């Protein structure tokens, strides 16, 4: 069944962005007042709704969209973080929002996408410290991928894209330094899955859990510049986690699995002619989910 054949779903698709925005706003305003379990359930719903909407908008048939949403959610890193056992769904949300917004910006290059990307990079900083790294390392890539025939003024574009993330960083620094308010701490971010693992296992987990990203990068039929943004996002999370782990920070395999999982969902939503590759997308996501559950037990198997 395609979206065009199912009228109620077409109507639902047009109202879904408003519902997602309302849920995000409610979470943003009410999270200090709500019990942590409710906030977590809200974040889980938000993640699933975003992936569902992204996959529908990409053109996947309804059943494939549902499958992609469920498989994105049951990947080990995201599922465990959703159940609050390890990791943080906030990192998944941050990576998905940034990767999707950046991919859409690279594809469409209009004022609305500039605002959405700026907002996503700002939001990502509120959700997880990795958001600032995404802003620093992803934006030059976005700016460096102009559309065909576009003579972009890269300094002007970079200034425009950096504006919102930089303002957010300054406000966050002020909130932490002067007001003593740290939203990231408040969200209870924890990224340690278990015991520390050697660096090579961390990197192995990142590369092995990313079949979707491999396809996005190397298979010509689904490769496009905006899809590569998701690959970069996953890579940034992986390298940053590795560095943080080396420096003894509280990051582990969970961060890699969550980051790569969320980037994979964003990558699938950026595949061109998605309806033609729907089966391949579902198969790749299923493989990613299976591999992630094998990898999640890697630390205890090794140690």
């Amino acid at each position, binding site marked *: 069944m395609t979206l065009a054949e199912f009228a109620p779903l077409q109507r639902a698709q047009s109202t879904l962005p408003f519902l997602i925005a309302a849920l995000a706003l409610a979470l943003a305003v009410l999270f200090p007042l709500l019990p942590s379990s409710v906030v977590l359930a809200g974040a889980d719903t938000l993640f699933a709704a975003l992936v569902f909407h992204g996959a529908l908008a990409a053109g996947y048939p309804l059943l494939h969209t549902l499958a992609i949403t469920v498989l994105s959610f049951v990947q080990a890193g995201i599922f465990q973080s959703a159940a609050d056992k390890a990791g943080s769904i906030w990192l998944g949300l941050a990576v998905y929002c940034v990767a999707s917004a950046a991919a859409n910006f690279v594809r469409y290059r209009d004022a609305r996408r500039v605002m959405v990307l*700026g907002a996503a990079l700002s939001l990502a900083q509120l959700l997880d410290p990795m958001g600032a790294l995404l802003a620093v390392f992803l934006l030059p890539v976005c700016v460096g991928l102009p559309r065909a025939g576009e003579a972009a*003024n890269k300094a*002007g574009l970079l200034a*425009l894209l950096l504006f919102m993330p930089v*303002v957010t960083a300054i*406000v966050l620094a002020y909130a932490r330094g002067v007001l003593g308010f740290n939203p990231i701490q408040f969200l209870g971010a924890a990224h340690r899955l278990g015991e520390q693992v050697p660096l090579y296992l961390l990197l192995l987990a990142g590369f092995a859990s990313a079949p979707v990203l491999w396809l996005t990068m190397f298979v010509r039929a689904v490769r496009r510049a905006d899809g590569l943004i998701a690959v970069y996002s996953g890579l940034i999370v992986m390298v940053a986690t590795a560095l943080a782990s080396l420096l003894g920070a509280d990051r582990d395999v969970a961060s890699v699995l969550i980051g790569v999982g969320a980037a994979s969902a964003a990558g699938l939503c950026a595949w061109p002619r998605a309806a033609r590759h729907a089966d391949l997308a579902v198969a790749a996501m299923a493989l990613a989910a299976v591999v992630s559950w094998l990898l999640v037990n890697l630390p205890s198997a090794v140690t």
Partner: protein
Amino acid sequence: MPLGGTSNHFRTDVLRKIHGWDSFNVTEDADLGIRLARLGHRATTLDSTTFEEATNRTGDWLKQRSRWLKGYMQTWLVHMRDPLALWRHAGTRGFFAFQLFIGGTFVSSLANPLMWLMFIASHALGITIFLGPFGEALARASLFSLIAGNVLFVYLAMLGPYRRGWLQLAPYGLIAPLYWLLISVAAYRAVWQLVRRPFHWDKTRHGVSHFKATAA
């Protein structure tokens, strides 16, 4: 709709019927837009571009903005002689739109430096501005308003050129707070002129720009 002066098109029969424009108002176009709305006429926007020569010297810019703001003050004073009549003619939405677009334009320009001074007094000199049980909350709300308002204004100033494809102009949006300061100077100059020379028309010098208009 407070009309702007660069490109307006009227039905002459309507214009004659309402006895033309107020030649004593230095923004007669804005006043005309309000009068048309009060008399039940409608103004709409054509999706097109009008190129005009922008002022490129601070002195010229100040004179032009002073004139515009003085005109808005005149328009507000004229139509607010009988607020109930304005409300009846323009409707609730139109009445509040008038307050925001005409009144808000010059009131915000006049209030802005005072707000900045209060902010400096409060944060740099440690002077308590807001007293009472809600003092702290008011101070926080004011700080948020100051930051969010200016950030939004700067961002919009950067985003405008992007929509036009003039990205090289986007970084200039960062100096929008300086624009705010200058427009406040123009607003106080306008108040002074409204009292001393209410109908004086500060002419804008034209033909000084080196640039020629090009299609976007």
